């Protein structure tokens, strides 16, 4: 998963895959790839629920720079 997909994009793509699978629009040949991709996307979403990477110092710095 080299691409840095954010969770919202990952979730959107996941919903598309789910819809495709539910509608039976996926061939058996493509299924394996789609399932693998879905697993990656699910991981991105679940990781987001349990982690944040916000930086308090950065926010303070930006407030300062904006003229406080």
């Amino acid at each position, binding site marked *: 998963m080299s691409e840095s997909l954010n969770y919202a994009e990952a979730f959107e793509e*996941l919903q598309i895959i789910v819809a495709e699978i*539910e509608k039976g629009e996926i061939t058996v040949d493509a299924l394996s790839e789609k399932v693998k991709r879905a697993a990656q996307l699910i991981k991105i979403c679940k990781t987001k629920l*349990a982690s944040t990477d916000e930086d308090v110092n950065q926010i303070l710095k930006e407030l300062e720079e904006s003229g406080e």
Partner: protein
Amino acid sequence: MSEIIQDRQVFSLLEVARSIQKTISDRYKSSYWIKAEMIRLNHYKHSGHCYPDLVEKRNGTVIAQMRANLWKKDYERISKKFLETLKEPLKDGIKILFLAKISFEPVHGISLRILDIDAGYTLGDLEKEKQAIIERLRKEGIFDRNKRVKMPLLPQRIAVISVETSKGYSDFQKKIADNPWNFRFFHFLFPSVLQGDHAVAAIIAQLKRIKKVVNRFDIAAIVRGGGGDVGLSCYNDYRLAREVALFPIPVLTGIGHSTNETIVEMVAYRNAITPTDLADYLIHRFHEFLLLVQKSARTVRESALRMAAEERRKLQAEVKLLNSAARNVSIKNSAELKACMERMTQHGRFICRDENQNIRQARMALERAATKLIANNRMLAGQHARLIVREAYFFLRDNAQRLTAAQSNLSAKSLAMIRENHAALVNAGRNVDNMDPKNVLKRGFSISLLNGRPVVHVDQVKAGDALITLTSGGAIESKVESINKTDTP
């Protein structure tokens, strides 16, 4: 009493004051209900008395103004009633309906002594004002503005407007930190007083700060609790309500009170009522997202398994069909094969029988032909033998004659050749004798030897050499005196 000075009736100030006092007290015998706007309460903490400034305005202009008295005892009673009814103390800038006695004191002049204030009137007026603000916000088209702002799937980064030490803020923090799913939130405090006269300006200032770093946050939350229900009229302030309504990210409120919903709460994206409920709502959003992800995962898994099973089933059906078809073909083919074999066997048998017969006939024909041939050959052989014997006899006879002729020819020729060779031999013997060295020496020739070897050239010999000269009849030993070379080499 007045006195006469220079034909004029003169009154002392006190007499005038007493006269006015008498007139007023005669004229205003009872107390009256009066409505006015109390622009300032002027409460003196030391004495406990208040001296409210009362005005009446028309189109924004003051058209009447008076100062009133509210003595300590009356103030305490009325203020308590206000807190019960309005959840607000008596304060500046409210409209009041009050019961007052009009009096005149010679020292203080005219005054309105407030005996009572109708809290219900003020409440109604505030409510009317609140409705007016709501109406204004709607007319400006911003009442629902914040509700239409897009809420992120996960409201994870929270700009909290609260008081650091407040119970509401601590409840909120505890709640979102201790969720059973280990969801993670990020929150950052923008401190502000949350009630009373200064709250409007303070909250607006923090909202403006948040706007500067708005990209860092998903939502803003106004969190309050544990401070009682007094002094929340700031949340009905037009300026604050407008700021919240126009805020670029969702504003959630958890102000924690039991009074009527304030305008700020109405225009906020969501009014969670209490800080705990606000935290619950955020956790709930996370949980909903988790459920959606889990549901998607389940759907993908189940659909994939179902598709795989379906494919397997199809494949098995195909295999079964193929097997059965193969068996049918096999059965059919083996029957045909058997029939074919039988036909071939039969055919072969016929062929064999025919061939046997042919062979028998051929053998008989061959025997007959052979017998006949042998008989013929026997006769021919006899004739040939006789012919050969005769031929041989003639051949041998011719050859014997030719041999005899050759023999006599050979004898004659040999004799002639021997004679010729004998004459040549005698001639040759004579020549050989002439060439013998002895005979040569006899004819006056000699041979000189140096060191036992013949001298064939004068260069071989130098003065002093010992020479042996062979000549007819013996050898001469000599020493070389000198050598004279002839010019010819």
